[in-house]
């Protein structure tokens, strides 16, 4: 356990940076959507107030294994997201905590799985419906996500994150980045892919039975998902050379720019039905699959 690894886990871009950044990005999205709708929007500290208030609620007591499981899912989401954020190669010159893209993908996948399991464990019909929608959507969008990462890995000829990071001028790299950007709205449950937490249709979906501190953890996990996913794309587009403070600054600025872009898409679109969302992802998956296969064949031919 080296010191720089600990710094990455706890300081930047780990816990101490990620939690306020998550709240800031969540506020940014709500404020941007409000301004686009000619409203004023919440004050800056609103996610923090929500978090602390939820911690102070008195929740109903549940008994049995179900109670422990229900508490486990949000805790697991938060921990896996912090781990994923700590693994991000913010400094591509090798000073960072270098990891493997496969591990990163596994960690990024965990909140979605926990969300689905939380819906089924909660025993409420709304939870089940929300979990089913999330499961089906996640299968569809994970295909695009994984193929995009494979595209980038094939073009960079590596699965190591620190080597994949840094924007090279390879077209395959940028197609992969575009593919990842396509998947982010579904992972964050934003419009137009917000069908699994459709308030007007299924109450709160999988989180219907959650209250108090567990709900606060889910909201925190959502904020951390913002940081992790936008940060991942930011590390893939940052220019490879430059001092370390430039990389850190670019990381934050590029993440926030993506938050603005995603808020614009969320404000401009309505919610897709599940069928339409799946059809959208399978079409793009087909395109990306073809591209990945072509690039693999091209590289084998060149070698």
């Amino acid at each position, binding site marked *: 356990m080296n010191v720089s690894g600990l710094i990455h886990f706890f300081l930047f871009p780990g816990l101490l940076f990620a939690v306020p950044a998550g709240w800031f990005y969540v506020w940014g999205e709500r404020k941007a959507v409000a301004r686009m709708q000619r409203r004023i929007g919440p*004050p800056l500290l609103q996610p923090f107030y929500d978090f602390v208030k939820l911690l*102070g609620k008195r929740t109903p007591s549940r008994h049995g294994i179900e109670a422990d499981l229900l508490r486990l899912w949000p805790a697991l989401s938060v921990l896996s997201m912090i781990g994923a954020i700590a693994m991000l190669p913010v400094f591509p010159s090798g000073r960072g905590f270098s990891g493997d893209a496969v591990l990163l993908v596994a960690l990024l996948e965990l909140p979605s799985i926990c969300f689905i399991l939380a819906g089924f464990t909660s025993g409420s019909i709304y939870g089940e419906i929300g979990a089913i929608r999330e499961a089906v959507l996640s299968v569809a969008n994970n295909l695009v996500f994984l193929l995009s990462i494979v595209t980038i890995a094939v073009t960079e000829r590596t699965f190591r994150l620190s080597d994949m990071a840094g924007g090279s001028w390879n077209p395959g790299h940028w197609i992969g980045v575009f593919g990842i950007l396509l998947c982010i709205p579904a992972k964050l449950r934003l419009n137009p892919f917000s069908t699994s937490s459709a308030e007007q249709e299924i109450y709160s979906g999988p989180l*219907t*039975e959650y209250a108090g501190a567990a709900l606060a953890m889910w909201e925190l996990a959502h904020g951390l998902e913002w940081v992790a996913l936008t940060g991942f794309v930011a590390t893939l587009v940052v220019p490879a050379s430059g001092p370390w403070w430039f990389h850190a600054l670019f990381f934050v600025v590029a993440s926030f720019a993506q938050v603005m872009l995603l808020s614009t898409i969320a404000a401009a679109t309505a919610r897709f039905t599940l069928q339409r969302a799946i059809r959208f992802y399978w079409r793009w998956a087909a395109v990306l699959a073809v591209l990945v296969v072509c690039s693999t064949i091209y590289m084998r031919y060149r070698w």
Partner: protein
Amino acid sequence: MNLIKRLMHRCRRKSPFLFHLNTGSCNGCDIELVTCLSPRYDVEQLGIHLEGSPRHADILCITGPVTRNTLEAVKTVYSQVCEPKAVVALGSCPASCNVFAGSPVIAGPLSKHIPVDVYVPGCPPHPDAMIEGIARAAQILASRGVSARAKGEPQR
């Protein structure tokens, strides 16, 4: 731990989550409540957020005279809201059943079944009055804390 109490008081006042329940209302009060979320009034400035589940909410906004069919729902939803909580009766129907008083299908004014904190008179009330009512309920529940009115465990 005075600082923590003050922080919790401030956070509870600044972030009231609503759950809206219609117990047989004509929908006039419901439409005016949704108007509060529209760009004209925009209660999100105060941190107010309409939630999908009663377990996520602090303030229960109830419209309508409590009909016989909705009586069980009112009691169940009230028990599902986690402490500290507050109840706002919007309009004159929950306060006194308005024109429906004496009808055999009405289970009486709301205060017969659950304790009400703020009444907002009007038929329907003006959105400004509703926002003031919700802000007052947030103040009440912030100063109430968790200890008061804890009568038994809320049901699942």
